[in-house]
């Protein structure tokens, strides 16, 4: 068996796991990342990773995990892969444990588990409150080991631009740009795995990292890769609002006993610590007695919206609610939640052990993403695979907390071997593809850059980005109206028009960040329009997608995957049936048992 080379785009959890699997099979990897991989956004995941190991005598099972996930996702997932993921989870935790992840322990030296949203079981393994960081580091270290053996080559500070497609529409490699030198190059390969994460920058202030622009997904979409369920956007209920980003305050804070409340009296300006319990409105506990503060994120987010916008009970009349841990033992807080409480302390300047935190919902995750098949993470374009947040499987209409790290790892574990198998099955390898195919793509990409450099006009990329983010946050997050979505699409079209009048202050090549950002911005605008158009089409409410004009789930018409195809500047939508063969859809409600 000859050795093959797989190109990986993105060095977060999914990408690194795929890289490990490819290298382990004896093949080589070119790993592209816009940041040194150890700085990828996976480090921001705080609370933990789900696996039904049932170490707390609760009778938990992988089936129960599967059921919670599908129920939490409002039945929009194709179920067989979700089942596979939940069944693989305990083994994945073992693997991470062997890699040296510093998971919290019980007195017996076993892994400790905590509760998370959308489940009644202690199913979440955690490493303090920086679990994503610890997982990413463990994988980064394994990849570094393969790098030292020459099996992985890292191309850090390189940004993916496009797939190289031959005349038959088969992927034969990628084009990328060096963020240092500005050089555009093509790289041949028989299989490409895309693991480029989230799209938070489209909403500007989200909980995501700077690199999460969705540019790669959009570029691929424009080249013919299908995109599914773009309208399914998760808004996390508890983040610290901020100008440069919204900083997540993990669901694990509630998992360890944190309580969400507002003063019962509107505009009650007292120090929250002096407000007696009877004068506090613990609205999640009152409205959802069974799950309390641990209802799924879409439910908690809408509840906060209702409290603030409909009942007018936001703290000091502002868009904020309290997330309170002051009643919990300090030592436990430090041991289990230190990392996240530290973020509040550093960025707000108050110790959450003494002061209730002020939080508000923020865009956090995209359940939708690159369309992949129901077996092995392959997209509709031969040779392109996708794993992690950038693809659409696993989470349906709403993701449960602590399932994202799991889906990244599981997707990466499937994609790596699948890409190798594909590369070895094709009759003609990239080596025999005419160099004209690569030259053509390189020229196309260089021309796009030349155009951006020579554009004249009065527009600025940051201003356009802010306007896009404002439009998206206002109209395409928690509550959606068709009229507003249509207005948002018109606004985005206007931004696309103004995009051609961006006048770059810097037209050089070396380290020109605004040039590359502008390149990404063009792609973000396409994805933004895809989100609002898909949201406008889905006339129902399901999971994170909520339309007051269509308040109920409508399985008859909308138990369907939205699947979009790029068509010369506009989008063609089709609606595929969802594989619900294992758990029949039932009404989703967290108000009582």
């Amino acid at each position, binding site marked *: 068996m000859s050795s093959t080379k797989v190109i990986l785009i993105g060095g977060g959890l999914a990408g690194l796991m795929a890289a*490990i*699997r490819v290298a*382990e099979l004896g093949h080589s990897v070119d790993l592209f990342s816009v940041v*040194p991989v*150890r*700085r*990828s*956004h996976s*480090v*921001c995941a705080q609370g933990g990773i789900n696996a039904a190991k049932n170490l707390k005598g609760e009778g938990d099972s992988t089936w129960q995990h599967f059921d919670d996930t599908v129920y939490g996702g409002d039945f929009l997932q194709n179920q067989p892969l979700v089942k596979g993921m939940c069944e693989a989870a305990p*083994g994945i935790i*073992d693997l991470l*444990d*062997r*890699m*040296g992840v*510093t*998971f*919290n*322990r*019980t*007195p017996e*030296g*076993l892994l400790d588990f905590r509760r998370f949203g959308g489940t009644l079981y202690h199913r979440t393994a955690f*490493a*303090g409150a*920086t679990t994503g*960081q*610890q997982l990413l*580091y463990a994988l980064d*270290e394994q990849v*570094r*080991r393969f*790098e*030292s053996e020459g099996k992985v080559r890292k191309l850090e500070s390189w940004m993916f631009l496009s797939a190289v497609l031959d005349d038959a529409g088969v992927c034969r490699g990628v084009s990328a740009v060096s963020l240092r030198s500005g050089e555009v190059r093509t790289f041949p390969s028989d299989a490409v795995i895309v693991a480029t994460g989230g799209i938070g920058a489209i909403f500007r202030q989200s909980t995501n*990292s*700077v*690199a999460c622009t969705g540019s790669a997904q959009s570029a691929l979409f424009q080249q013919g890769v299908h995109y599914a369920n773009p309208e399914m956007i998760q808004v996390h209920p508890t983040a610290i609002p*901020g*100008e*440069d*980003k919204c*900083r997540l305050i993990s669901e694990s804070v509630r998992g360890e006993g944190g309580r969400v409340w507002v003063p019962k009296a509107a505009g009650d300006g007292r120090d929250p610590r002096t407000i007696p319990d009877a004068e506090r409105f613990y609205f999640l506990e009152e409205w959802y007695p069974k799950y309390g503060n641990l209802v799924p994120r879409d439910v908690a987010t809408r509840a906060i919206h209702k409290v603030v916008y409909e009942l007018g009970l936001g703290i000091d009349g502002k868009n904020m609610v309290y997330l309170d841990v002051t009643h919990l033992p300090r030592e436990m807080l430090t*041991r289990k939640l230190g*990392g996240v409480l530290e*973020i509040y302390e550093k*960025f*707000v300047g108050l110790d959450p052990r003494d002061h209730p935190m002020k939080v508000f919902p923020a865009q956090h995750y995209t359940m939708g993403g690159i369309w992949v098949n129901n077996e092995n993470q392959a997209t509709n374009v031969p040779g392109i695979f996708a794993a992690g947040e950038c693809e659409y499987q696993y989470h349906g209409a709403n993701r449960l907390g602590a399932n994202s790290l799991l889906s990244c790892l599981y997707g990466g*574990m499937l994609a790596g071997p699948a890409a190798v198998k594909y590369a070895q099955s094709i009759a003609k390898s990239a080596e025999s593809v005419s160099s004209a195919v690569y030259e053509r793509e390189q020229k196309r990409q260089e021309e796009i850059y030349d155009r951006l450099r020579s554009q004249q006009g009065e527009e*600025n990329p*940051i*201003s356009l980005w*802010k306007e896009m983010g404002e439009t998206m946050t206002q109209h395409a997050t928690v509550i959606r109206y068709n009229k507003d979505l249509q207005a948002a699409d018109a606004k985005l079209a206007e931004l696309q028009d103004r995009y051609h009048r961006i006048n770059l*202050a*810097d037209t050089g090549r*070396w*380290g*020109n*960040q*605004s040039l590359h950002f502008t390149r990404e911005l063009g792609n973000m605008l396409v994805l933004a329009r895809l989100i609002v158009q898909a949201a406008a089409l889905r006339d129902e409410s399901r999971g994170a997608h909520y339309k007051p004009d269509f308040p109920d789930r409508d399985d008859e018409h909308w138990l369907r995957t939205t699947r979009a195809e790029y068509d010369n500047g506009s989008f063609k939508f089709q609606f595929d049936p969802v594989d619900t063969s294992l758990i029949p859809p039932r009404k989703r409600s967290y108000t009582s048992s």
Partner: protein
Amino acid sequence: MAEAKTILVRVKRQAGPQDTPQWEEFSIRWRPNMNVIACLIDIAENPVTSDGRKTTPVSYEANCLEEVCGACAMVINGHSRQACSALVDHLEQPIRLEPMSKFPLVRDLVVDRQRMFNDAKRMRCWVPIDGTYAIGPGPRIAPERQEVAYALSRCIFCGNCLEVCPKVNEHGDFVGAAIVNQVRLFNMHPTGAMHAHERLRAVRGPGGIQECDNAQNCVKACPKGIPLTESNNDVNRQALLDSILGWMFH
């Protein structure tokens, strides 16, 4: 009036490694809870100096913006630290931004910290597992031990400890506290410990632990509160013991 309040930011600019550095000053509109990153975004939106001269946006590294990725380290008012957690209201003005000086400069505030990752490779900073296959659970670990390891494993490779270390300079090649701390971390893992000798041999080599002269600047500069001097001492002790044992048994 509050809305007229401005922030003065001076940035040490350098177009490329071969170019001459020069300072530029920017005047930025103050808003509540701003950090240095928000200032840099403002400059990108309006790249005009405070004396009205058009310039280019400032290049800088940033990713997570919550001090967990390590990207945005720079020298702010003379102190090496993360720009995301540098809150404007806590900084003396004009705010001076400079690139870190111990790493090769790329452009403006961007430096190349690749040496840290290379050193991690050289010191074999990983747990060597047999494979990713389902071969059962990992070793049991006491909670007290996990707590020590967790504190060490929060290192974000920002490089602030190297920037402030007197032994990291053009004449010396000390790997720095961050990497020494990694050696301690992996040597304390039950599986990692089986290969402790390899790491200790590397950490006694060129640029190794012997270069540390215990200035203890590292521990003060660490944004994650990692007990770096404790790690230096611990690895020093391990390395010494390893070399004595090596001498006795070979």
